[in-house]
């Protein structure tokens, strides 16, 4: 068995699919291409894939339907690739069990980073964004709904999070009580390693604290562990 990550790329547009496959191969992945859902199904039977990159709008069976089939029959994570940017589509995709969503046109580097994040998450057990219904986490008066990526306070008011903050919070929530160092957090949230003097994690944490802590200077929810990293304190209820 190859140690290379095996990707199934499903897109009806050959003009996009072919250069993308070439790029991914260059980045060290093993790629199979399918032009429609039925071709993808037969490839799915023939190979063992680690991840599926799936276009939503395809002639014949569309991506949403194929994704439902994949999540019902396998554990293979799915990333949607679509030209549609309507916010609702994002929610539908995640509810159907897609793990992430990227809109055309995208940076191929960004796609590779996301592939790594999704793989890390699915390999590490909890943390899968879409598990079919979406998870709801409750902690210290806050509610995080993964199907809409929304953070809601005790009064029912939505509090806006950037994607980075959301992923950071989710990483901490799914590993509540566990101390996570900067490298681990970067790895989980961005699928990359920290370089020297990397302040990205500390930055996200301090922004997150400003939004959720009563007193950001004296954090109660996200605590700093000296020399170690960060930890989410308090009870987390998963619904």
């Amino acid at each position, binding site marked *: 068995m190859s140690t290379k990550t095996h990707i199934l790329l499903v897109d009806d547009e050959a003009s996009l699919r072919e250069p993308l496959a070439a790029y991914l191969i260059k980045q060290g992945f093993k790629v199979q291409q399918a032009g429609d859902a039925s071709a993808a199904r037969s490839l799915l039977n023939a190979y063992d894939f680690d991840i599926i990159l799936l276009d939503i*709008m395809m002639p014949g069976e569309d991506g949403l339907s194929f994704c439902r089939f994949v999540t019902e029959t396998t554990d293979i994570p799915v990333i949607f690739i679509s*030209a549609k940017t309507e916010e*609702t589509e994002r929610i539908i995709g995640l509810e159907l069990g897609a793990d992430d969503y990227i809109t055309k*046109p995208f940076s191929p580097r960004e796609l590779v980073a996301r592939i790594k994040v999704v793989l890390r998450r699915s390999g590490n057990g909890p943390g899968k964004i879409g598990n079919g219904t979406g998870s709801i986490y409750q902690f210290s008066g806050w509610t995080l709904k993964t199907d809409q990526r929304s953070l809601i306070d005790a009064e029912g008011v939505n509090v806006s999070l950037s994607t980075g903050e959301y992923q950071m919070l989710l990483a901490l929530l799914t590993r509540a009580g566990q101390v996570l160092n900067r490298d681990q957090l970067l790895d989980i949230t961005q699928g990359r390693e920290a370089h020297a003097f990397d302040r990205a994690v500390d930055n996200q944490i301090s922004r997150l604290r*400003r939004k959720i802590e009563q007193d950001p200077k004296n954090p109660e929810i996200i605590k700093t562990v000296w020399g170690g990293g960060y930890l989410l304190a308090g009870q987390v209820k998963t619904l």
Partner: protein
Amino acid sequence: MTRLWPNNLVGQLLLVVALIMLLAQGLNGFLLYRGMQTQNLIEASTAAVSRIAFGLEREASTRPLVERGPPRRRQRGHLKFTTETVISPDMNRLSELEVRAEQALTNMGFTFSEIEAVSVRQLPAAMEGYVVGANRGRWRNSSINRSMGSRRQPPQTRGFVILSIQRPNGQWVSIASAVRGRSPIFIRTLVFQTITIFLLLLIPLILFGRYISRPLKSLTVRAQSFQPGVNEALEERGPPDTRDLIRAFNDMSSRVSTMLDEKDVMLGAIGHDLRTPLAALRIRVENVEDDSERDRMIAGIEDMDQTLDDILSLARLGRSQEQSEPTDIRSLIETVVDEYKDMGHDISYQRGARQPAHIRATLIRRALRNLIGNAAKYGTSVDIIVDKSDDRLMIHVDDDGPGIAPDKIEAMFEPFVRAEESRNRATGGSGLGLTLARAIARDHGGDVMLENREGGGLRASLILPIR
């Protein structure tokens, strides 16, 4: 006048009916009054005729009056005998009464050469004491009227009829007869009648008015809150023409919904068909060896994508699938500010207490991005100030850029108009940013305003209503 004019259908209907009824009853009253007056005149002249007949009969049946010297008035039946007529030419002759009296007297077998009947307001002095008819004293003393209480007024006298005939011997025989005035209850009866009829009409009128106005009201409400594709058909009720109107409205709204659905499908197709080649290009660009060349190509592709996005968002606005939810504006601003800080812009923002508002967060974030992005593009440092009044929230985005000529400010909201005269794309952006931001704000019941700041720079304000 306009203050008294009710502003709804039922009120106007009631007012118009009340006015018409008042007019009709007034006319009716006038005619009744006229009829009554004629009746009273006839009555008075009939009394005069019978008194003359009675007097002349008595004179004929007893002895000749002349021979016995002047008889007592009573014996002569209150008739006045004169050699000259008592009627002066300036009195109002009533030919109709004359004809009636002539007929009556002729039928009774009297002969006379001349007959004159007049109506007068004041009894001429000559006729004083030769009057038949109403007498106030007698009325008041009648036991029947006393028992009715004091509320009943005695009938008023309204002038007199003087009937005068010339006998064949040239002698004039005259009698005055009091004409009854209008009954004091006449006006009261008329008013009571008017009010009764109006009250009787009131209930069916109100019911009918509501029958008409209710469906119209719901149609108005529906038209005001019209959201294509969201509303089911409005129930057809009310009178047939109102039903026709509602049916036409329903047809129209479903046509509008269909058209907008088609537009959405078309926009989706355009978005898809343009983004796919753009995405392919974006991937191929990664193969370009020259770093600066590649970055410029990437920026170009992203710019095109952004423009496409702005156009599609603008075209789809108002058809957003996103629900409006209570959202903290402060954290929303902060998220956008952080994005721009990460890109290296100098943005200052003092975060304050939580500020919830009912908004579509994705759209408002977009509007904020456009405003803050503009400020960061044209200025070196950006200041964001949040101002709150009772019913609205103002988010001011201040920059230290060149500002905009005052006469160009409104034009900035037009699609594809940019601050620079030439439409060069050096500063990027589609020229739709402000158009979109304002459209989003207005969709939320707010607005976006631009003004030059004192001391240079531009202030863009996003105004949102808060409940």
